[in-house]
């Protein structure tokens, strides 16, 4: 099924968002084939380059505001828990502006999927450091380099109670598609941090191409919380795949 809209895609050529868009469209298409009616899908986005994705996919969508995607999706599920809710957020969007919402959505175990377009930079505002920019990151607001240490989103989500924690890479769209499908199918709060190169302000293609490896291909036990925390600390090589997965009661199921 073609999921395109008539909107003109305005991302920079080579942007990591293209890989994510392809993965998401393929994932939704396969899920439709597997039996989820198309009208059940609702996607939402924050504000930033990532957020344009809702204009490019022809399913129900709520183009929300900066940082607020988790409560928007939680509300959607509260009203109608049969809907399949997928949120697209940026690193500045969700690790800076909306971090409290992300933590609380994980804590509630709302049955939503959050896909973070994590490019380590505020791109649409032309290049400032975010919560995941490395220390020393030279942006327009930090000409001498950022003085702050970055967050570790995987660890943050693990300790916040997320029941599905994964990392993908925009440069590996087939792997990312499978991750998104699993995240959507997981009943509970699913979190997928996607390493996303930004060709304009933080081009990390070469860096990630050299460093990423599939942790699930190496026998990682996704039911082991401690091991997931250890894997989240790895820096020399960067693990992608599912870090942790568990089952818990879903927030909206508590209501009649």
């Amino acid at each position, binding site marked *: 099924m073609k999921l395109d809209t008539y909107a003109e895609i305005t991302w920079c050529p080579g942007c990591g968002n293209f890989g994510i868009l392809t993965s998401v469209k393929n994932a939704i298409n396969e899920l439709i084939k597997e039996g989820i*009616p198309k009208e059940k899908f609702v996607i939402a986005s924050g504000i930033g380059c990532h957020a344009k994705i809702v204009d490019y996919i022809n399913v129900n969508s709520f*183009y929300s505001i900066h940082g607020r995607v988790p409560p928007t999706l939680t*509300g959607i599920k509260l009203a109608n828990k049969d809907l399949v809710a997928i949120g697209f957020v940026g690193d500045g969007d969700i690790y800076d502006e909306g971090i409290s919402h992300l*933590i609380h959505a994980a804590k509630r175990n709302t049955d939503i999927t959050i896909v973070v377009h994590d490019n380590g930079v505020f791109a649409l505002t032309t290049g400032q450091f975010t919560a995941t920019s490395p220390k020393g990151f030279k942006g327009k607001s930090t000409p001498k380099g950022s003085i702050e240490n970055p967050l570790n989103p995987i660890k943050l989500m693990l300790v916040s109670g997320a029941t599905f924690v994964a990392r993908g890479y925009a440069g590996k769209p087939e792997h990312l598609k499978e991750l998104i499908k699993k995240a959507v199918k997981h009943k509970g709060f699913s979190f997928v941090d996607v390493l996303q190169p930004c060709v304009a302000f933080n081009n990390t293609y070469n860096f990630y191409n050299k460093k990423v490896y599939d942790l699930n291909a190496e026998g990682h036990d996704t039911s082991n919380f401690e091991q997931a925390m250890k894997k989240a600390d790895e820096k020399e090589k960067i693990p992608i795949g599912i870090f942790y997965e568990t089952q818990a009661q879903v927030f909206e199921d508590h209501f009649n």
Partner: protein
Amino acid sequence: MKTITIGGKAGDGIKAAGKLFANILSQLGYYVFVLDDYPSLITGGHNFNKISFDKKPIFSHYKETDVLIALDKKTIDKHKKELKKNGIILYDSNSFSYKGAIGIPAQDFVKEVGGIKIMRNVALLGALSYALGIDFKIVKSVLKKVYPEKADKNIVIAQKGYTFAKENVKQILRLKKIGKPKEVMSGNTAIAYGAVRAGLDIYIAYPMTPATSILHYLAKNSQKFKLKVVQPENEISVINMALGSAYAGAKTMIGTSGGGFALMNEALSLAGMSETPIVIVECQRPGPSTGVPTYTSQADLNFVLNAGHGEFPKVVIAPGTNEQAYYKSAEALYLAWKYQVPVILLSDKHLSESLKTFEVKNLKKVKIKTSNGGKNYKRYLITKDGVSPIAFPGTKDSVVKASSYEHDEFGITTEEPEVVKKMQQKRLRKMKAIEKEVEKLEAVKVYGKGKNVIVTWGSSIGAVLEAAKGLKNVKIVQIIYMLPFPKKSVEKHLKNAKKIVCVEANATGQLANLIKLNTGIEIKNKILKYDSREFEPIELLNELKRWLK
């Protein structure tokens, strides 16, 4: 009209005593009004309430008191001067002694039945009931109704107070049953109740005085009302969650006070742009900032009228009594969904938390025409009145796209100036349609006839109505709709007035300014109260007399 004052420390059950006694009086068929006055602390301090009652409808408490009930000495020290000439003081003589007041060994009565200290209030209410000549059967039935699980001990304690009073207190009144039992309700409960009756599906709020009791009431009754009640991490989450649920088809209301509403402004604008229906209850308290959190004010009028960046249609309704709160809450839900706009229901502590007799009619559920969508569905279809057919995600063969960005009819982002202009016009056309609709609603309420006019709004109407009982040749104009402003109606009632006085609880005369802005009529005479306390009828009457003489 008579008044009872009950005072003590926070934790002494002062609020509960006021509610209980208001229920006893309304059981007899009396009309009541209860002011609940408490500082921002949990234990200690000084809490009191004023229960005023009458055979005819009553809209405010009065300061002057017939009976003072004191659970601590501070209550007598603070309120003795409010006692009427033949007034009496009843107090717990196990806690302190006071010359010239009637001691009731309340603590002893509680101990005798193995009760807890807070039950002293019931012992004193027993004595009070005797002093007012109320049949104990009434007291008993109300206790059973209010405390279904712990009625037994309370009844024995009340009986002991009652019996003790028989021998030690002279009856000052003989209150007999004068009519059918009446309901007593706070403004917040009325807001909640009205919304539920109109078909509310979800209530979302972060605790903030004086809006919190809506959250408490609806959480407690969520099963009964088939309602989902959620307390998220902050007010920003509250409103965004509500916009999500409304987008997915659930009638949603949220509640807060000024500070919380400030946090919601970003998403209020989102509601305007995405045309998502939402009802926001804003219960005012004195600012700026944290201000005086547990007291009252009407200083957020300008704020709510101007809230949200950009230009978009919205509605602001300010009920003044609990009955109006009930009807207007339902109306807010109706307008929000019919026109797909944010509607702000503006209350204040005095309306939200005071109790009053409540006489209303049943409400009908809000019914809104929804769209069946279809392959060519456009969420933002341009129409004559600006209202686009609303469909929800999950509708077969439909794609429902909502957006914070400027968008085309389908919902895709646009930056084309022609489209931007068309969509802005489309949204603003809804305001014209709302204006027409509001003309048919009670946007202004007029009481009495006269050449002199008192203009007021919100909870201040209560004291104004009571004060006006002592005035002749005076018309009261209560403005209920602030946006759209009922210009024609206000003009009609004000233009031929001999003198106009505006009564409101803020320091700058925000309603008077709004009237001037909309009608050109300048009101020079303003009675403004901004000491964080509500108007009191006798004090207000004295001021009004000075202005109107």
